[in-house]
């Protein structure tokens, strides 16, 4: 398996530049709700940020849960990605993921999750506090 993104979330300032570039890269416009990385601001309590993204876990329950076999292997990177065309939007993967790693596109018609931008994760390149890193290939 390829390595997932890493995050030192304690240094996250909540600027959402990761989500902005992610949405631009994947859907061609700026819209953080269509990003594959989600930034939650939890204030005033507990007073911290939470970053949600697919950690490309070994057990990948999303793949097992998908009735349409829409979560497919990218052999080059060794990670599973959502084939938007094949996805029926049932949401089984969202329920199956214990890591809040995937969610529904706001249209509700398919699920979305991190695909490491095909090997050049854009969020890493834009994180001004270097919270995000990727030591894949």
């Amino acid at each position, binding site marked *: 398996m390829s390595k997932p993104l890493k995050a030192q979330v*304690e*240094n996250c*300032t*909540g*600027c*959402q*530049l990761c989500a*902005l*570039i992610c*949405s*631009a*890269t994947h*859907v*061609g*416009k*700026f*819209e*953080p*709700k*269509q990003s594959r990385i989600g930034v939650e*601001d939890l*204030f*005033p*309590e507990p*007073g*911290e940020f939470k970053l949600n993204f697919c950690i490309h876990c070994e057990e990948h329950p999303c793949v097992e849960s998908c009735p349409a076999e829409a979560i497919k292997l990218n052999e080059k990177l060794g990670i599973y990605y959502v084939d938007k065309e094949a996805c029926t939007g049932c949401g089984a993967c969202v329920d199956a993921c214990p890591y809040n790693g995937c969610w529904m596109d*706001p*249209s509700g018609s398919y699920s979305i999750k991190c695909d490491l931008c095909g090997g050049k994760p*854009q969020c890493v*390149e*834009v994180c*001004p*506090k270097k919270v995000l890193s990727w030591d894949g290939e």
Partner: protein
Amino acid sequence: MVTGYTGKILRVDLTNEKTSTEPTNMDWAKKFIGGKGLGAKYLFEELKPGVDPLSPDNVLMIWTGPLVGTMVPLTSRYVVITKSPLSGTFLDTYAGGYFGPELKYAGFDAVIVKGKAKRPVYIYANDGNAELRDAKNVWGKDMVKTEEILRKEVGQKFARVAGIGQAGEKLSRIAGVTSDITRNAGRGGAGAVFGSKNLKAVVASGSLGVEVPKIDEFVEMAKQMLWKDVVGNPDHEGLITDGTPIIVKMSQDAAILPTNNWHSGQFDGHEGIDSAALKERVYVRKKACFSCGIACGSFARVRDGMFKGSVTEGPEYETLGLAGSNCGIRNIEAIVKFAEECDRLCLDTISAGAAVGFAMDIYEKGIITKEDTGGLDLKFGNEEAYAKMPELIAERKTRIGDLLAEGTLIAARKIGKDTEKLVIHSKGSEYPAYDPRGSIGMALAYATSDRGADHNRAWPVAGDAYGDGDPWSTEGKAATCHDEQTLKSYKWSMIFCDFYGVSAANQAMFLNAVTGMPADEHWLKEVGERVWNLVRAFNVREGFSRKDDTMPERMATEPLPSGKTQGKTVRPEDFEKMLDEYYQLWGWDDQGRPTKATLEKSGLGDIIPNLPYLK
């Protein structure tokens, strides 16, 4: 085709409880961009002169700008534009955070609200649609609870809320609008305008996004600018390491830190409220607004003592000055508590801090007593009494709370006994935390600020008290004010954050990339001059002129007692000289009114028939 805008404005008629949408006037957008400029144009055209700001006839707007919601760094802002109940002037008051982008993702460049609802309501804007909803579950509640409840009511975990607490509901003229719990469009009493309309909040949620041409090239450019011009920009270093609290020490050293209701420019307790104290005693983490690589904000929490558990973002320099040294407060923990109360109740910390400092001054002079304060021993530095003041003001409890809710100037006029002399303001808006007696250009900046005393229209203090220039020379001060007011007028029409030290050329590049408008430095300058002249014409139409562009008497008559400013005042003849020069630079007459020629030159010829003084 112009891009970057949603192209839609949400109209809300509260009297008839109706919402509608209309196209954004793109002919106007090409002349005024958005934000401050475009909002000023709409307000000038739609507000009748002489309207009581707290009457249903006032117009309340929330504007975004074309860059908001994109990856252009530090463009998270929205602006509330209305006629100010504090100063009676044009009002534009800004907040960062996440609300501005969300309003655009919800499909709107702006929300324009008129009339008054028969019952408390809130506006819900979602993916190009909007509705008015009953606010009975949140009326009377603070903004922390309001945000939580309204997100649940609309069923959107990531909905953003801009609204008012108890201060706005009770029509305090120093009430602001809060979003994201700690971000405030604080100045000028915008919160009271919400309250006067029975409008609790605007809730935005959307996934429409913002599109720009050639997005791949655009992203590359924005990425490069982020690293080179934001993270790597030496001008941002202090903001990245400390944020605005770094200014406390600079002001103490320059002896312009307002202390004990402006009776001194130095505070012997400054070490308890400066950036080092903040970092050591209450700092939790850095917090950024949307699209910002600087993250000047510090989320702070009090660890122990009387105010244990209190949280805020900041406190920022203005709060540390007005609500800190100016109230004789020596401990950062007490200021965190005060700021938390102001966030929650939605009070402007500059005006509230100034008001409490004033109240402490007249309490110590025996003009008010414990009978007026509900038993509080309101001496300078009494943290326990001080921390209760935001609630007394917002809820109009006790005589002094009810008076200060009107703003310091009206409070003093009602109290009488010559207390008006103790109020440090211009046009009723309390001074921010830079004493002009140690930077005389600030007296001009405050006097000529379009929304009443303000530091965010021009900041000559940077070049003298904090720099190499002579703080007591009149030379170049009018030009600094003129140039910075021009710059801010276009910068806030896009809308950039004040803290992005971005060149005019780069602003033009960003605007051009997002909108396709033919922006360059010269074009932007023309827009800036047009916007500032328009806003001045608005204020003149409301009756303002040279007679109102003044400084408080104490700036001339009461010398500061210590440090670099010992014995210093602002000489009235210097002030008048700067003002004359300033009017000339702007092409205004000797009463500070834009002439026909100036308006025509600025592309404002069409408003001349609406200005009775030019007939």
